[in-house]
């Protein structure tokens, strides 16, 4: 029998294509922002910051189309998971774009400051790792690849380790030479921005995993609350 909801499924495909476009825009911004920061490129920083409006416009357009599909088409099963995933991913991607705007703003604030070579190297590596994770998350979505989506959580450990090394390097550089406090604070925040992009990539991986299999990540917080509540409640015998 022929497919009977062609138009609806075309809308779903278009939303997916635009999510991938948004994801590609952010993926490009990660090395671009890193270069701006390391080279002190004020003009580039301005371009990246202003260019975020384009991302925001696409983000809102996707979100509105998702709501429209939910309202008018009442998707079910894989279609429902697909549209819910698109809504959640859209936010993760847009937020990652904002984090690269923050990196560009940090580049403006610390313009003219000299970085320790080790700090510079770690920024470069964090940028590369964040881009790799983000690219892999978008590939997992594009290819419906459950394996790639599931692997992101483990891969993010490398970026977390890099960020810890980076903070340590900032402290070490601060004790050996005269350092501008504004620069140190901004650099510390930059490490956090890359680390958060890695977290967003992991979240995207979880959403993709859900889209493909219906699996939801373990609710670790909820599980801890349940354990605490059970410990707080005295056994029935004690109550009596």
């Amino acid at each position, binding site marked *: *029998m022929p*497919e009977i909801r062609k138009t609806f499924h075309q809308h779903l495909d278009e939303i997916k294509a635009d999510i991938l476009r948004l994801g590609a825009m952010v993926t490009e911004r990660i090395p671009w922002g890193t270069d701006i920061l390391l080279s002190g490129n004020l003009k580039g920083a301005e371009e990246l910051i202003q260019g975020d409006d384009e991302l925001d416009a696409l983000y809102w357009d996707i979100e509105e189309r998702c709501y429209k599909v939910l309202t008018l088409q*009442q998707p*079910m*099963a894989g279609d429902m998971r697909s549209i819910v995933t698109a809504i959640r991913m859209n936010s993760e991607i847009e937020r990652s774009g904002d984090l690269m705007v923050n990196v560009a703003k940090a580049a403006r604030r610390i313009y003219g400051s000299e970085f320790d070579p080790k700090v510079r190297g770690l920024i470069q590596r964090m940028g590369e790792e964040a881009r790799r994770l983000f690219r892999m998350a978008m590939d997992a979505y594009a290819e419906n690849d459950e394996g790639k989506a599931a692997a992101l959580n483990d891969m993010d450990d490398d970026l977390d380790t890099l960020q810890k090394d980076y903070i340590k390097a900032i402290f070490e550089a601060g004790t050996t030479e005269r350092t501008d406090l504004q620069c140190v604070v901004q650099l510390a925040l930059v490490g956090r921005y890359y680390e958060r992009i890695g977290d967003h990539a992991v979240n995207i991986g979880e959403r993709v995993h859900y889209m493909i299999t*219906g699996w939801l990540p373990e609710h670790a917080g909820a599980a801890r609350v349940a354990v605490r509540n059970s410990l707080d409640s005295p056994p029935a015998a004690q109550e009596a």
Partner: protein
Amino acid sequence: MTLADSEIRIEVADRDRDPDPVIEPSSTVFEVADLSVYYGSFRAVRDVSVNVAEHEITAFIGPSGCGKTTVLRCFNRMNDLIDIARVEGRISYHGADLYDPAVEPVEVRRRIGMVFQKPNPFPKSIYDNVAFGPKVAGIKGDMDDIVEQSLRRAALWDEVKDRLRSSAMGLSGGQQQRLCIARAIAVDPEVLLMDEPCSALDPIATARIEDLMQEIKDRYTIIIVTHNMQQAARVSDRTAFFTTEVNEESDTRTGVLVEFDRTEQLFSNPADKRTENYITGRFG
């Protein structure tokens, strides 16, 4: 004979009923195992196995010709009324074989009422429509009370209490369908079978029936056949998806149960690709 006629005949024949001691209550109302239904030599549905739980709404969905209505009609032995219909496999009702020769079909149909696709009130007053079943079933008690209670449970009382002696034919389609529900529950059944009860109704009347189903499921076990997947998703606790398979040698189609699960699970993450394809509109 129309379905409405058959309903009348059943209730008339029910005059001297005795409670069937074989049927005992339990939390599972129906257990269906390897059910097949034949019309002559043609097998309309094959190998259906589902359990229907007490005080739940179970929905049957699937494309036309998948056998969902045929299976529904097995639950109160309506297929007995078709000479060439034959049932294989087992349907147990509270553990007792529903098709055991010792089980009286008329008693089965009193305990297991049916509401049909098209509202089919008798050309009588609203009061007489509701009182008809209890009267012929020999149910004792204050008939005014029975009528009022039934109409209240069917969420119709407030709309008709001042015109009980008016013709039921003057009611709107949605009101007529709720009257049919009142008529079905007036004989105090345990189960209500609903065969596309909203397909002839507008969205507001449909919403009222759906709301009513939620309100009365504390008292009744409900099985609903519906073409409307959103309706199944909205009202039911469990859903069975049926489809058809082509018999190459005879170029006929036989209905088959594909998946039976909690409604939330079936509509969010169905286990079978055929279910996914049907509920998302992707065939083939």
